[in-house]
């Protein structure tokens, strides 16, 4: 954990760690588990899975459609038999369907992707690539249906990592340059654009000279990896509050997903291995490669990390991850990191009121008046928060909560505020 410096007048610089150059990157492969769990975010509103049931046999790389009347699907990452289908509620009421597959020792690959690839029609191939390691929502970026999403004419590939201590994109830059090159070519062809910008920390710039794309550097200082910050600092374009970069026709994609795209076309196999940064209790870091769907417990067991009662398990990095309640949850396409915190390391939030010390104001990269915002949010004044106090200017980096003297869960208040505001607006619209 990075503490406040003794001379607190100088603000702590939260740096993304750079891998040591000239040293080989060690990636530990995690053995396949006997069961694989697939999580599917259910946005359809349908309650029961109608097109898959326990006992069905699935193949690796098979496209599984769960509901009627939707084009959503998931890719099975193992060969075996579906043991259990269950429902879960996640972050802010999101619905998930979990599918447990008892894995056969031998992988049998589904041939549909290969056939589509040999035909050479990108549109058929993309139907299998809604999610790639490093990017769960790729379908929004690669969408070929302009009515659904505004078309993208500029693509930013992120070589900078998505959280402190995480080093996935850097690892890809160091180890899979050929795949990246392939991926960029394919991406450019699918998206019909050559306006591709690669954003990297300065230390990695030299690696990319042969890729033939525009390379821009950003300081490896948190929160410079956020799309809104890259838009502001690199592209010199301010995204209006409450809008996403996609609304300005700019798409963001992680280097890991681009490399996976390259691999998919090279091997004619859907990539199902995810690079993960495992952050141990002592903040030391191990890079691992695991199949999507591997339960977290298996990874922790392989690395000899023991979890005890009262510890904290986080999927994702230290600033933006999600604390989870069970070791049985699987690695997903966008699980960049697994962080384990010991009981004694955890600094809990308190219900103290804001003491107006101004630390958050100095830390906020979006110049949100956090001290006022947290007061109005605490009192449920979501309209005021959105109109006057910059609720939707917040880029959700969490620095305010990181520096808060009163230890208020500021980011939690903000996320809840955004959620409640959206519910209010929906209710107003349906009543109108």
């Amino acid at each position, binding site marked *: *954990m*990075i503490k*406040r410096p*003794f*001379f*607190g*007048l100088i603000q702590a610089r939260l740096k993304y760690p750079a891998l040591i150059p000239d040293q080989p990157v060690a990636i530990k492969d995690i053995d396949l588990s006997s069961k694989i769990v697939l999580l599917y975010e259910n946005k359809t509103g349908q309650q029961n899975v109608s097109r898959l049931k326990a006992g069905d046999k699935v193949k690796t790389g098979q496209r599984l459609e769960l509901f009627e009347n939707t084009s959503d699907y998931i890719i099975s990452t193992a060969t075996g038999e579906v043991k259990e289908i269950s429902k879960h509620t996640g972050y802010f009421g999101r619905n998930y369907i979990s599918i447990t597959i008892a894995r056969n020792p031998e992988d049998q690959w589904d041939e549909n992707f290969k056939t589509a690839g040999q035909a050479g029609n990108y549109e058929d191939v993309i139907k299998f690539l809604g999610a790639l390691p490093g990017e769960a929502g790729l379908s929004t970026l690669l969408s070929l249906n302009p009515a659904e999403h505004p078309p993208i004419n500029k693509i930013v590939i992120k070589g900078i990592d998505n959280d*402190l201590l995480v080093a996935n994109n850097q690892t890809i830059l160091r180890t899979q340059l050929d795949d990246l090159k392939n991926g960029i070519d394919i991406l450019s062809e699918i998206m019909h654009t050559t306006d591709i910008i690669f954003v990297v920390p300065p230390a990695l710039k030299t690696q990319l000279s042969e890729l033939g794309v525009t390379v821009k550097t950003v300081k490896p200082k948190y929160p410079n990896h956020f799309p*809104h910050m890259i838009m*502001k600092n690199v592209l010199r374009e*301010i*995204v*209006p*509050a409450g*809008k996403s970069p996609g609304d300005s026709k700019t798409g963001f994609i992680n280097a890991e997903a681009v490399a996976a795209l390259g691999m998919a076309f090279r091997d004619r196999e859907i990539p199902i291995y995810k690079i993960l940064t495992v952050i141990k209790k002592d903040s030391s870091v191990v890079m691992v490669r695991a199949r999507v769907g591997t339960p977290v417990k298996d990874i922790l067991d392989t690395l000899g990390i023991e*979890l*005890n*009662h*009262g*510890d*904290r398990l*986080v999927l*994702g990095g*230290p*600033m*933006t*991850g*999600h*604390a*989870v*309640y069970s070791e049985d949850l699987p690695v997903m396409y966008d699980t960049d990191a697994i962080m384990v*915190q010991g009981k004694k390391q*955890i600094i*809990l939030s308190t*219900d*103290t*009121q804001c*003491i*107006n*010390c*101004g630390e958050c*104001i100095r830390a906020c990269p*979006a*110049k*949100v*008046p956090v*001290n006022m915002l947290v007061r109005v949010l605490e009192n449920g004044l979501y309209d005021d928060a959105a109109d006057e*106090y*910059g609720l*939707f*200017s917040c880029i959700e980096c*969490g620095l305010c*909560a*990181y520096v*808060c*003297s*009163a*230890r208020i869960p500021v*980011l*939690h208040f903000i996320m809840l505020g955004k959620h409640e505001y959206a519910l209010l607006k929906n209710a107003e619209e349906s009543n109108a």
Partner: protein
Amino acid sequence: MHSQKLFIGSHAPYFHNGNSVASKSYNIMFAALPAVGMGIYQYGIPALAVITFSISCAMLWELIMNIAMKRPISIGDGDAAAIGLILAMLLPATTPWWIVLTGTFLAIVIGKQIFGGLGCNPFNPVLVAFAILMLSWKNYLDFDAALLNYDLGFKMLYPLGALKHFGINAIGDFTSQGLLMGQQIGGIGASCGLGLIIGGLYLILRGYIRWEIVFSFLIGIFVTALLYNISDPDKYAAPMFHLLTGYTLIGAFFLATEDSSSPVNLVPMLLYGAGAGIFTVLIRNIGAFVDGVVLAVLIFNVANPLLDKIRPKALGKGI
């Protein structure tokens, strides 16, 4: 299922830089020690008695209010103790116990708790208490009268009082150096300029108080006093005199910088500090009171919410 391990669930971020209200309060108290030590050295056991009694009373009032208002016990965060200490620093060493008891009541209960406790007070609690004491028991807080029985080897006259009542000739004996080293009578912890500066710089460097407020306050005092001094050197004291006497330094480092009653954005901080500084000299030079720091800072506490509306536009707003 019952033997299952349970993990701590919470929202991101999972790192925290270790800041806390308690570390802030204790550092403020630590920073006050040089000035307080000098006060105890000069005035002896009575000064120590006032300080310890003030701190304990403040904590006691906080505890009583916690229980009465059914709130979590908050004396551990050190804020009440810091309020007690700073209040005692403003008082003369001979203050009777019942004034200390009333003063801490006013600070903790009237100044802080009835507004909702830590962070909710619109005024600096210490100043609320001190202003009421100052208006209610003038004689006990008149340093010349209160410290009549002391002889510390320098001129036993409250510099600002002398200036107000006897004019500029009466302060000829005070040198800047002497004032800085604490050769003046005054509050227990308010007379040793050097100690306050050391403590204040410590707080600024550690980031516990906002330097913008401190410096704009001091500059406000300096510039205003300088203008008066230029306009009529026979009537108005030099700016250095104003900087080193009365509550100027304790005001700059410990009073005006109280978190909840001061602004957090850059421009408002500068306006707040400068305004309080200007008003301080105005009150001293043409007002009815001997020292203006207490009332000037209180006035700008009132202006704080308004001033703090001047703030930069949030990212992506207004385009």
